[in-house]
């Protein structure tokens, strides 16, 4: 079952979420990040992840969007250069994308990768199937509802 999303009655109305290009870049990153030897995660799970990321950014505010956007751009532009393929990250095939990101993670600008990876992981491992694949059953952490 896909987790539903809570709305807070007293919250402000959500702002804008991810742009179309940020959605594409986030998907390319997530597809590589969560790949197993069998391939990338099911497309439905990735779709849920990107929708949830969009919801997160719409609620977390402009500075969160700005910070995530900067991380994403740094990754999208620099990582392909690290494998000698100038262009977009999404344009690389999956093995090369993984290699580019591995090199980025060990580079002096690794903080940008860590910023984007952190929020993607927090959301991804809240999906019950992803949590199960990681051997996690945190009944209380998953919220009582």
């Amino acid at each position, binding site marked *: 079952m896909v987790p539903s999303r809570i709305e807070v009655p007293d919250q402000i109305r959500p702002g804008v979420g991810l742009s179309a290009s940020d959605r594409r870049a986030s998907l390319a990153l997530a597809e590589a990040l969560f790949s197993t030897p069998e391939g990338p995660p099911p497309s439905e799970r990735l779709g849920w992840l990107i929708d949830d990321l969009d919801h997160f950014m719409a609620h977390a505010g402009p500075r969160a969007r700005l910070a995530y956007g900067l991380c994403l751009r740094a990754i999208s532009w620099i990582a392909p250069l690290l494998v000698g393929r100038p262009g977009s990250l999404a344009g690389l095939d999956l093995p090369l994308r*993984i290699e580019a990101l*591995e090199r980025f993670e060990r580079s002096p600008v690794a903080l940008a*990768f860590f910023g984007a990876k952190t929020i993607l*992981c*927090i959301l991804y491992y809240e999906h019950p199937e992803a949590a199960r694949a990681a051997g996690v059953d945190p009944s209380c952490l998953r919220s009582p509802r």
Partner: protein
Amino acid sequence: MSQVQSARDLDRDLILSADTVVVGSGAGGAVVATERALRGERVVVLEEGPSVSAALLGSMRPSESLRHVWRDGAFTLAIGVGDSPSINVTMGRCIGGSSVLTGAVCFRTPDHVLDHWTSVLKLRDYTERGMDRYFERVEKAIHVEEVPAEMRSRSTQLFALGARRTGLEMQPMRRNTRGCNGCGRCNFGCPHQAKMSVDLSYLPRAMAAGAEVWSHCLVQRVLRKGDRAVGVEGRTLGPDGRPSRRLVVHARRVVLAAGAWHTPLLLRSSGLGRPELVGHRMTLHPGFRVLARFDSPVQGWQGALQSGWVGDLEPQGITLLSLFVPPGVLGSTMPGVGPEHTSNARHIGHLAMFGGILHDEGGGSLYRTPGREPLALYRMAPRDRARIPTLIRALARSFFAAGAREVFLPVLGLRGVDADAFARLDLERIPMNRIECASQHPLGSAQMGAFPEHSVVDPDGKLWGMDSLYIADGSIVPTSLGVNPQLSIMAIATRIADRMR
């Protein structure tokens, strides 16, 4: 009125009057508001964030708490300057402030810190004996109790075992809880109303005594008449989060308690305080974690989130603290991409975790930006930088002594290392821009002191040179504490409330 009132949907300006207006509803503001309301004063509390009920907090996934209750979804950074790590500084933005999101850890201000305050900084009343009654009052109000050993998670138990084998002794933590069942999600809002955060312990008492508590109120400056503060003004935040209606509270006393991150901005936008002191010398308690993989399951999220600490390294400015994070956050710390990452993540249930903080010198500065949030820079002192390897070694060696197969260090991109590889690792040579560092304790950006030329507020929390303007939050704490500051902030706020004229 005994409920929080929301200014979000007001179709009129919000103009109020009070004896005391308090800006911020966190650990400091809630205490002052309650203490003054109980004395029969008309008190108004203004909070920028929303009101989120404990029941709703408890029903959120961790990431939903991040997006709804944490400031900027926790994307808040103090940028490292020079040879310093950049630090993720997290804080709450809701009724109750960061007290809603703490691990409920309660330390009194350590004696050696109070000794420094009294003997070096000449804050003569801040002795152990002088502060005792304030701590007692707060501890009673928020129900501080020791975490029983049986509530320790297996993660903490394993660290305690290894620590003992390396000559370190774990001590039980004290927390502000009542009826905690150790579900391990304190940092995202307690689902059982067992954490006695100020939205549960103080603000209801304030409102019962007549205080008005408003959400969605952005205070932009202090109103003054000559050298007296006479109120505050700003804007309500409308449904789209943007400044909406005019907000004015006329009051004979103003208390700023917006936290160490925002109180300095409010002073600056009001032209108050000495510019060379306001927003500078901020300490952060830079924090580092080490994860350790064991052969047997650990399931570290089962048990009290924070239940033990090690004080043996305090002479070196280091405090070790138990902690745990949700699986998703654990996943993000697993190095690698693709199959390597997902393979590492399969061991999440076998990971133990412990952390440590530095009792740092004040290297943080806050600057105004065109938006509402500050630009924060942090220059770590050489002394503190040199302590990072010591802290990491203490954590890793304890885990290895407990039988860990490998450890994951707070170094970006570094793979897990076994005991042999760890022994060969030259931690002193790891660049600071690869160090992963976090903070939940910004302090000291508008410090209290005995002399106006060196401090922003006097020992009673009153702004030097200004009548009727007080600060009662983490910004006035004059040095870092080396321990979680919640209880210290509340005790100092109680003292300030007692001594207001």
